[in-house]
């Protein structure tokens, strides 16, 4: 089956694809834009927070890992594909459906720092971005406005931002106790920017602090692009086709001619297009472009995560436990910028999260069963504070996404990760864990346990089709256009030349808006 040609076909309806589509349709309303998404819309009535068995959903159909969901007893609504992650100590997490991973993200919404765009110039490591913070700043503001951000202006860790649309989410006892620890040490802390309504905003309610954000938000207080950017994009005329799995970007004589996809009925469909934009995250984008034969030596290479570790402190006083958005209490950038005396360049992000639900906490105990396990659970539940340490990976060509010899059930080649935690990242994590333990002790913790590397934290799938000027070390130019195929664009976190040490969604959205503006100008 062959469809009529369109002007632009976008692959993927997550943070990058949604923002890109909405903006391009606004800037160039005459274009015919189609977005193909491998998964479907999620109905909030099916989310587990309504049910008594909501806890086990976190390790079953609503697990954050696609590999775990594929093994689950109950079918998932995420249109997943298996990922061979045996070669990576960090396991990839994502959601495959309209909204992408914003469906099950924690919605912590920080920006990169200005220095993150110039690591080579400032610190002699990594690479500089082809543009700076100031170039992206207006797009950060626009993405914030569309997503709806709770927070507090005046943070000395960042250039001045506009007033946040809503006041910050409540810190709760847990956050205020952690703040006491940071304060005792004289260290920076600040309530997080969160893409979660703290009060009713833009037709969505305020958060009622139910907890399991990563199993979908039943009230829609948490922003996800299916409820933020997509209604705008569709109003602007974008056609979104769910349950369509793109098999190949067709490339002839150095030009993309469209895509071939498998529709909801399993039929092969040819979709001609003047321009193809891929936004399937750092794994999905690399997989599709490799399967399409894009000739680019850097494609799939330089895979970066934000390696994560936890320090958990146990206190005598009663705290909240798993009350409120899991990723959103407060953070510290006291150690974000480079200090050469630490023995490594760049820095770490410290984030006070909410605590584990009872089942998750029980599964993480050692021992996991018996009298001591129950005693530990009782001592820790509602008496602990966890500090997440995020480190900045640096670009290394050997960390990569490749194809396997298998053909998966979705019709595409299998995909494999090879990733080694670098000495740099290990040092960063250890430094961050030491600081986190200091905070917890200062806050009153009588016992602190560490998780030196948390495996199920691979949300941030970055840099496998990075921007740059050198075609041997980058895949696209500064406008997201592939060096080898200029009418084939990338519009997601795959583009990041470096990744900072903070969650990337805010930057992915801002970058997608900039790229859409660039393309609209090119077409005009």
């Amino acid at each position, binding site marked *: 089956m062959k469809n009529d040609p369109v002007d632009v076909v976008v692959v993927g309806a997550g943070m990058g694809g949604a923002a890109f589509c909405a903006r391009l349709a606004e800037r160039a309303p005459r274009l015919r834009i189609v977005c193909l998404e491998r998964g479907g819309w999620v109905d909030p009535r099916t989310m587990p*927070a*309504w*049910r008594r068995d*909501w*806890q*086990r959903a976190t*390790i079953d159909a609503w697990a954050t890992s696609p590999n775990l969901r594929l093994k689950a007893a109950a079918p998932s609504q995420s249109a997943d594909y298996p990922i061979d992650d045996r070669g990576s100590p960090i396991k990839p997490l994502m959601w495959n459906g309209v909204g992408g991973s914003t469906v099950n993200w924690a919605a912590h919404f920080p920006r990169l*720092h*200005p*220095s993150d765009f110039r690591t080579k110039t*400032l610190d002699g490591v990594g690479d500089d971005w082809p543009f700076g913070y100031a170039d992206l700043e207006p797009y950060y503001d626009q993405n914030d406005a569309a997503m709806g951000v709770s927070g*507090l202006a*005046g*943070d*000395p*860790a*960042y250039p001045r931002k506009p007033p946040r649309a809503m006041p910050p989410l*409540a*810190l*709760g*006892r847990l956050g*205020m106790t952690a*703040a*006491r620890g*940071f*304060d005792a040490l004289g260290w*920076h*802390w*600040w*309530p997080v920017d969160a893409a979660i309504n703290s009060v009713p905003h833009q037709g969505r309610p305020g*958060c*009622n*602090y*139910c*907890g*399991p954000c990563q199993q979908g938000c*039943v*009230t829609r207080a948490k922003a996800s692009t299916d409820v933020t950017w997509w209604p705008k994009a569709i109003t602007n005329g974008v056609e979104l086709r769910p349950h369509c799995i793109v098999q190949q970007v067709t490339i002839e004589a150095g030009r993309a001619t469209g895509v071939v996809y498998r529709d909801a009925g399993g039929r092969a469909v040819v979709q001609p297009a003047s321009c193809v934009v891929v936004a399937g995250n750092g794994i999905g984008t690399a997989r599709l472009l490799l399967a399409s034969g894009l000739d680019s030596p850097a494609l799939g290479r330089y895979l970066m995560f934000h390696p994560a570790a936890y320090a958990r402190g146990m206190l005598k006083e009663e705290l*909240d*436990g798993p*009350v*409120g958005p899991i990723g959103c209490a407060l953070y510290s*950038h*006291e150690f*974000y*910028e480079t200090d050469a005396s630490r023995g490594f360049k760049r820095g770490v992000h410290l984030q006070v999260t909410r605590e584990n*639900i*009872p*089942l998750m906490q*029980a*599964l993480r105990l050692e021992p*996991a*069963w*018996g*009298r001591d396990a*129950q005693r530990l*659970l*009782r001592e820790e*539940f*509602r008496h602990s504070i966890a500090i997440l340490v995020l480190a900045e990976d640096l670009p290394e060509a050997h960390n990569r996404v490749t194809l396997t010899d298998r053909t998966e059930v979705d019709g595409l080649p299998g995909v494999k990760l090879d990733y080694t935690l670098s000495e740099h990242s290990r040092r960063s994590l250890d430094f961050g864990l030491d600081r986190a333990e200091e905070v917890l002790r200062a806050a009153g913790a009588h016992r602190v346990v560490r998780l030196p590397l948390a495996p199920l934290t691979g949300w941030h799938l970055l840099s496998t089709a990075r921007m740059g000027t050198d075609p041997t070390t980058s895949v696209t130019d500064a406008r997201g256009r592939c060096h080898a195929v200029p009418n084939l664009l990338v519009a997601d976190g795959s583009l990041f030349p470096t990744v900072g040490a903070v969650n990337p969604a805010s930057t992915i959205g801002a970058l997608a808006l900039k790229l859409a503006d660039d393309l609209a100008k090119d077409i005009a």
Partner: protein
Amino acid sequence: MTPEFLAAVIDTLLPGDDALPSGTAAGLPLPAYAESHRSVLDAIAAEAGGVESFIRADEAARSTAVRAVERTMPECFRALLMAVLSDYYESEPALAALGWPTHPPQPTGHAPVAMDDATAARLDRIARRGLLWRP
């Protein structure tokens, strides 16, 4: 596989204490484990010298048998443990003992305490600090 044996295994995993109920006291569905985790339960019985022997054993001896099977059949054992812990930490007796609501998170949610004056003062001190970012 008798109910007494199943109860003994489950209460070895979750013996309870003066605050938390044991697995059987929490009303866990013992027959379901016999159906879905037969091989690992059989292995525990064999390790102890038989079903009756496991039932008669003290807590230390039961734990030794279970630990041995945890080593020899790690995946099967983990599957049993996850099923048992899932049922336990979703049970009303266990949640109530932890001081946690027994109903789902929605529609009620939770009501966290508001920021107190001391925290607001701490935040104000941070706001007055010099810039931390590099241009």
